[in-house]
């Protein structure tokens, strides 16, 4: 098998057997108008408006975007400026729930019978990549089949971050949605082959998916070695197909598109029900969680503080959106769950080990999946040597954190790489 460098992590997937349940409906939700990569949405409701579940509350004409829908029924009590955990600001709609969860009359299964209607439906569903960066799904599907023909759909079910089990539960609990979603994408986009990639630490999921696809020739279940960051896009493309997504390219330039397993299942769910993306499966875990660790369907916009309270994690010293390797720290637990959060982790210990001087051991170089040289990048960054940073290809760094993790001197190499990238003028 094609193998890039990486690291072995403790899996800590203690919630893997926790069946997903509905999270108690919050009294109010905060729905930011930017939950995806690309342009934020315009808010299309006003203070005082009554809204229903699935009603569109934000949209834009911008190409790179995805509409946003109300996760609850109730009243818009405020439209505020909101500071997101990633540092960006946008408008956010505060909705007080009336507890009835009345469904919007517009919610009806869409008619999908060709490529364009599939893409239009996916856009209307508000779907973005559920696994990571929040790339609007309809844009990923809307490639030009002449310029960049695609022959392989890669389903990313690696879930290589510790603790998180939401994709795993998706496979076990809704295998039909997953497989029908894949078949729909293959059918309407004309993609002959699907490589469904699962890490070998999830044997139950591999077994189930193999059973369910026994009759389906176009879906190939690929068992990947469990290694971090196996689920990173360029890594999984290489592991599954041996193709190298070069600098400045997207996977589609190599004839593949990569979709997260929960994302593809959501396409089918939308086709089946017409209910846009208004809630999602979240893993709540971490050593500060004292009760109810597990997987939940959480309405978008639910404040993290409610999750922490429900799980007895109010004493946490560090709270993350996402996994321990690439997750973002919350500075304030009033932040809401947004579309691309797959986990909320709460930890008792927040401090990282002290940084000491680099001993030039080369571990950072040996663990980098992209063969970058973080030790050299750090020196070049300190010297503000932009040309050297370009030669070292710091822009390829995906911030996976393997280098920082492995460094015996605990140098914040991944962070330095992100700072170094900013020194390089964009073309």
């Amino acid at each position, binding site marked *: 098998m094609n193998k890039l460098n990486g690291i072995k992590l403790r899996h800590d997937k203690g919630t893997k057997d926790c069946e997903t349940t509905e999270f108690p409906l919050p009294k109010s939700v905060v729905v930011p108008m930017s939950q995806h990569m690309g342009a934020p949405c315009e808010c299309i409701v006003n203070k005082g408006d009554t809204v229903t579940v699935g009603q569109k509350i934000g949209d834009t004409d911008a190409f790179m975007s995805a509409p946003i829908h109300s996760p609850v029924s109730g009243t818009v009590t405020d439209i505020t400026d909101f500071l997101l955990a990633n540092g960006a600001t946008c408008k956010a709609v505060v909705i007080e729930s009336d507890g009835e969860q009345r469904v919007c009359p517009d919610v009806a299964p869409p008619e999908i019978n060709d490529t364009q209607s599939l893409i239009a439906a996916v856009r209307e569903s508000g779907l973005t990549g559920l696994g990571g960066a929040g790339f609007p799904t309809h844009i990923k599907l809307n490639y030009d089949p002449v310029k960049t023909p695609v022959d392989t759909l890669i389903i990313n079910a690696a879930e290589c971050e510790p603790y998180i089990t939401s994709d795993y539960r998706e496979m076990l609990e809704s295998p039909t949605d997953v497989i029908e979603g894949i078949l729909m994408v293959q059918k309407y986009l004309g993609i002959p082959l699907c490589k469904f990639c699962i890490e070998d630490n999830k044997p139950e999921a591999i077994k189930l998916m193999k059973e369910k696809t026994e009759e389906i020739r176009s879906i190939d279940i690929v068992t990947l070695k469990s290694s971090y960051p196996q689920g990173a896009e360029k890594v999984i493309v*290489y592991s599954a197909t041996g193709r190298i997504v070069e600098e400045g390219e997207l996977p589609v330039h190599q004839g593949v598109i990569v979709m997260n397993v929960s994302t593809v299942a959501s396409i089918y769910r939308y086709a089946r029900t017409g209910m846009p993306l208004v809630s999602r499966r979240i893993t709540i875990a971490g050593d500060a969680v004292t009760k109810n660790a597990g997987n939940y369907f959480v309405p978008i916009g639910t404040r993290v503080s409610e999750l922490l309270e429900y799980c007895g994690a109010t004493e946490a010293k*560090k709270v993350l959106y996402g996994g321990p390797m690439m997750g973002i*720290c919350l500075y304030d637990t009033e932040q809401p769950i947004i579309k691309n959060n797959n986990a909320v982790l709460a930890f008792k210990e927040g401090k990282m080990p002290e940084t000491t001087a680099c001993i030039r051991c080369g571990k950072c170089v040996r663990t980098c999946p992209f063969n970058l040289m973080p030790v050299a990048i750090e020196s070049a960054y300190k010297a503000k040597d932009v040309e050297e940073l370009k030669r070292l290809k710091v822009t390829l760094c995906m911030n996976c954190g393997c280098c920082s993790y492995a460094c*015996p001197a605990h140098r914040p190499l991944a962070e330095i790489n992100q700072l170094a990238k900013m020194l390089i003028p964009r073309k």
Partner: protein
Amino acid sequence: MKGLYVSPSPHRAADNSTAKVMMMVIIALIPAAMAGCVFFGARAALIMSVCIVSCVVFEALCRIIMKKEQTVSDLSAIVTGLLLGMNLPATVPVYVAVIGSFVAIVIVKQLFGGIGQNFANPAITARIVLMLSFTSYMSNNWAVPYWYSDLVDAKTGATPLAAEWLTYTENGVNYKMAPFTLGEMFFGETGGCIGETCAAALIAGGLFLIIIRVISPATPIAFIGSFALLTFLYTGSGTETLYGVLAGGLLIGAFFMATDYATTPITTKGKIIFGIGCGVITFVIRSFGSYPEGVSFSILIMNLLTPYIDKLTRTVPFGAKKAERSGK
């Protein structure tokens, strides 16, 4: 909820530290150091202790005087002291050991900024400085395993490399006989520096470090391999080749000094070049030079070339556009 820690990802770190790495190196050196004590007696223990203590004291003082954070707890000064001690004959006066430690820690390491910043291996450089300044202590008067010291034979007072090979003619054929048997060389019953004679212990320590991935096998394989190949081609004798590998600090050099992180290349390609360079230079000095011992010089010379090797052996980033790949 307030007062949360906010830090950039990743939020996990491997259970490792500089001190742990150094501890592993110390553990790997202990068998050879103990063998030195067995063969050279209490004085060997004394010299190694003096080196360790003075290295630690010099390191602590340097950091205090330079008003930098204290680094004694990273154990690197202990490694340097131990290595230096193992690279001295047990017979050196104590003050020579202290001077060596001063050179290693103060001049070679701390003046260049401390751990990771020095360009030459502290213990090697100190050994060379002592060899040039105290030549008589460092080479003429080699320590002998103590149970030989009252015997008068060819073994007395010479390292395997400096000792004359015995030549004799029998039935018209010339024979060369090594002053020590290969078995003696393997277990370390020869003259030499405290820690360099016991091949068995050095190999065990080196393998240990390779297995726990503290050092890469590339350097020792390239070093020993290229030296052995050249020696074999030059002498045509397997015994002499083996003899050369086991003698004169080649093993301690290849496993413990040529693998020093700070002063050797980072990438595997670089390590191979470094190792081959060391092997070739050692061979040349031993075969054609006036010093019997080439290992220290070879490593020092390659230390000086390391920044250039590093520049030439950068990794090729995954997916980097070919036309503008890094390196030049």
